[in-house]
């Protein structure tokens, strides 16, 4: 999906590597917890919690984490958090291992909401804070600003304060230039006691369509009505001359019964046979459909993968509390080695910046990308849940009124009863009544 206004800045906030190893002390400890909650819809929610105790005064005042303020971060367009943990060999023979914890937060700020329509941005406007000092625990604390599109002409854009060093590398297949601001460099902070990066446009940018990545995908449900539909995925390859294969993985829940004989893949109007198909049919209430295909995408083309399905009628206890909201189909996953425009050299893990190692390349000719399409919402045929109540009311009324009346008419007999003269109780009661002055029974 193309983002509306991609700002050419991705700020990765990284805490230093090897965090927990340093701050461990006898009274502080790492507590971890895993809570698994099965949900009524069949999903399972798992919540991990790691509690690490730090010295509080060190944490709050330094480094890049001062920018993490929730009220500004929730005015964003997109945010994503990731945690990576892996063991690292401490020496070449790997006799001892240390653990690396990498925490990543990606946010995309909306120019219209933060910048009120203008494309200028600054750290203060985005985070309502500026950087004051580096984190005391950090061995490296840097801010990189992507100035690839602006470095040619200094007339359109002005970056303030001007960068002292730049860093160039091949990221995601294209050559990019970054301005580097090192917080540990005393000259940087001492000048103004705070660092507020700003970018101003000298002349307003034109409103042309934003650039499109080489591989992107869309997914939608065709058809209308509650009986059947068609699941369509569009794969766009916008590379001008290179074709590359894409691995498409679809996991469709069992209540959408896929008809695999209707699977059609067309590129540029012609049929496109996948090189590899793996299909595992669903079992009702046990496992979903699994469809995995390796599709060759021709250069500069749109490939449409479509498969028809029928919506199942669930048992009435299986409906969620809000069945008219719909049921979700999880996104399909596309994995591809996208050819890069510029050959990249293999990454030196220790010397290069952390964001470079997010997209590892094994050879310089392509980079690995995993894309998720959008999730879909489908409505299943929903019965009228008030019908059991209606049926019970109607049946009880019919039984009571009709059957009861007929039964009475058929079986009721009348017989004459002599009035009784009364027993002891009656005579006693009459005595009391005479005493009271009330007429006798």
């Amino acid at each position: 999906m193309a983002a509306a206004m991609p700002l050419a800045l991705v700020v990765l906030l990284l805490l230093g590597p090897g965090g927990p190893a340093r701050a461990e002390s006898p009274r502080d400890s790492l507590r971890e917890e895993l809570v698994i909650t099965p949900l009524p819809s069949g999903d399972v929610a798992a919540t991990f919690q790691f509690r690490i105790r730090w010295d509080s005064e060190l944490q709050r005042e330094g480094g890049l984490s001062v920018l993490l303020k929730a009220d500004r971060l929730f005015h964003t367009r997109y945010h994503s958090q990731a945690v990576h943990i892996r063991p690292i060999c401490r020496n070449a023979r790997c006799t001892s291992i240390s653990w690396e914890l990498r925490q990543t937060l990606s946010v995309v700020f909306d120019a219209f909401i933060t910048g009120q329509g203008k494309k200028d941005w600054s750290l203060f406007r985005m985070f309502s804070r500026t950087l004051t000092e580096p984190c005391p625990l950090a061995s490296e604390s840097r801010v990189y600003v992507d100035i690839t599109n602006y470095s040619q002409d200094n007339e359109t854009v002005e970056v303030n304060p001007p960068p002292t060093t730049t860093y160039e590398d091949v990221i995601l297949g294209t050559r990019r230039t970054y301005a580097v601001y090192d917080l540990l460099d005393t000259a940087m902070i001492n000048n103004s006691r705070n660092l507020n990066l700003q970018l101003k446009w000298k002349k307003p940018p034109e409103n042309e369509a934003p650039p499109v990545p080489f591989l992107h995908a869309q997914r939608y449900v065709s058809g209308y009505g509650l009986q059947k539909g068609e699941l369509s995925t569009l794969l766009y390859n916008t590379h001008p001359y290179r074709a590359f294969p894409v691995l498409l993985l679809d996991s469709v829940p069992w209540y959408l019964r896929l008809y695999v004989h209707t699977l059609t893949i067309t590129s540029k109007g012609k049929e496109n046979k996948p090189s590899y198909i793996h299909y595992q049919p669903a079992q009702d209430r046990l496992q979903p459909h699994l469809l995995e295909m390796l599709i060759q995408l021709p250069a500069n083309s749109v490939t449409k993968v479509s498969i028809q399905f029928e919506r199942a009628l669930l048992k009435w206890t299986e409906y969620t509390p809000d069945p008219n909201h719909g049921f979700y189909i999880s996104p399909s996953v596309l994995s591809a080695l996208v050819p890069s425009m510029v050959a990249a050299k293999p990454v030196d893990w220790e010397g290069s910046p952390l964001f470079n190692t997010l997209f590892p390349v094994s050879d310089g000719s392509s980079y690995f990308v995993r894309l998720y399409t959008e999730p879909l919402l489908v409505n299943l045929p929903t019965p009228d849940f008030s019908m059991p109540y209606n049926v019970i009311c109607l049946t009880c009324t019919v039984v009571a009124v009709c059957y009861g009346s007929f039964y009475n008419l058929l079986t009721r007999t009348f017989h004459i009863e002599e009035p009784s003269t009364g027993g002891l109780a009656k005579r006693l009661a009459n005595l009391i009544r005479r005493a009271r002055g009330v007429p006798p029974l």
Partner: protein
Amino acid sequence: MGLLSDPVRRRALARLVLRLNAPLWALPVAWLERTMRSVGLEVYTQSFSRKLPFPDETHERYMVSGTNVYGILRAPRAASTESLVFTVPCGSDSTNSQAVGLLLALAAHFRGQIYWAKDIIFLVTEHDLLGTEAWLEAYHDVNVTGMQSSPLQGWAGAIQAAVALELSSDVVTSLDVAVEGLNGQLPNLDLLNLFQTFCQKGGLLCTLQGKLQPQDWTSLDGPLQGLQTLLLMVLQQASGRPHGPHGLFLRYRVEALTLRGINSFRQYKYDLVAVGKALEGMFRKLNHLLERLHQSFFLYLLPALSRFVSIGLYMPAAGFLLLVLGLKALELWMQLHEAGVGLEAGGGPGPSAPLPPAQGVGLASLVAPLLVSQAMGLALYILPVLGQHVATQHFPVGEAEAVVLTLLAIYVAGLALPHNTHRVVSTQAPDRGWMALKLVALIYLALQLGCIALTNFSLGFLLAATMVPAAALTEPHGPRPLYAALLVLTGPAATLLGSLFLWRELQEAPLSIAEGWQLFLAALAQGVLEHYTYGALLFPLLALGLYPCWLLFWNVLFWK
């Protein structure tokens, strides 16, 4: 609101939109794309083209092609699973330019808010409803009406609700709402209640069917006005036309409404800010929806904006009317059985007459009228559009007129054809033939009207109210001219003519005879056109279903 709060800028925008009108007005696609992109939406276009069955007066050519422009406001931090649609239909007469300005202003205002949970699609269509149908078919990737359109490039998930806006002037005196959709479908009543709530909150004057809300329900005026509004809604729903873009959304089970700004001769006028605030409120409430609108009624009749008649109250009326047909059919069945028993008893000891004489004769004499009536109905359905070129070669008329005149010609020709084969009727029971035919015709009519009343109650009730008395009364032995006049006056064409006059009478714009006739011809052309362009069912129902049935009764009347 940035763009609208300054009246000078608002007028400048309106003037800019109006200035784009050229004699052959086409949608300024590039300008719209640029403006929507500057407001911050993801903009896509879609081109479509459609070959009309015959050129009508709005388009005047067979091939209609255009471009739709739509911009998607993506909800922040949401997954694009659901969306709302705000659509403004633009036609060639550019009566909707102010609505485009309001759409852009609202888009700019909505773009700066963080509370959107669903995407909002701002859609500007060309050629009014043709563009809307093209966009809906491409969005749902179906081909229902034979439209050719380029595939869409941007989707926003499942559409939950839609609002269409038609504004022709800078200031409005009232807002009119249209609920009747294609083939008499209605949106969920909750959407109308939403509109009514915001009318009251904003102090706007809101009308239904162009009529104000009656204030006083205790005296006779209130109920009488309510009856007028109700009759107007029945007539509009019975016509099966989509009275606005919302009518086309309903087929895809998307609840939709059309709001029209009316500028009449009232003192108090509302500017676009008031209309914009009502729309903003409606969209914010629709944004809060967790489920699709399903809690309220889908089948209702409206005597006023704040009152409705539910299906449980009005359906028994149609039921009782059809019961008349059922009872009449039962009576005929009993008569046929008595006559049959009497005949067999009389002809038992006689020579071997063909056994059973009654049933055999009845069936044979029934097949011919049935076949011929159905053939006439088929001719009425197929011939006008198929034969328009032949007609224009021989007569000095345009194609649309040729279609309409062929329709009327076949309708009248059906009356004149001698199509009862009375020679096969045995002389012993001359009544049996027409009774059997009338029995079959009554059951046929009851079945059809029952099915129609279930899907489009207003159409079913209207046809039942006019056709049932005539059908029940028809017999060959009575005063023939009187019954003939009654049958002609209750036939489908006369019902259409009468309901047109009634409709304009209720709207307080009565028609003269000549105007009424012109409107009738235009309505016939529209009916045929809408069947081909949107899939409206009135034309095939009347031509293939009710007209042959009505011809059967004509047969019964002129039985010899």
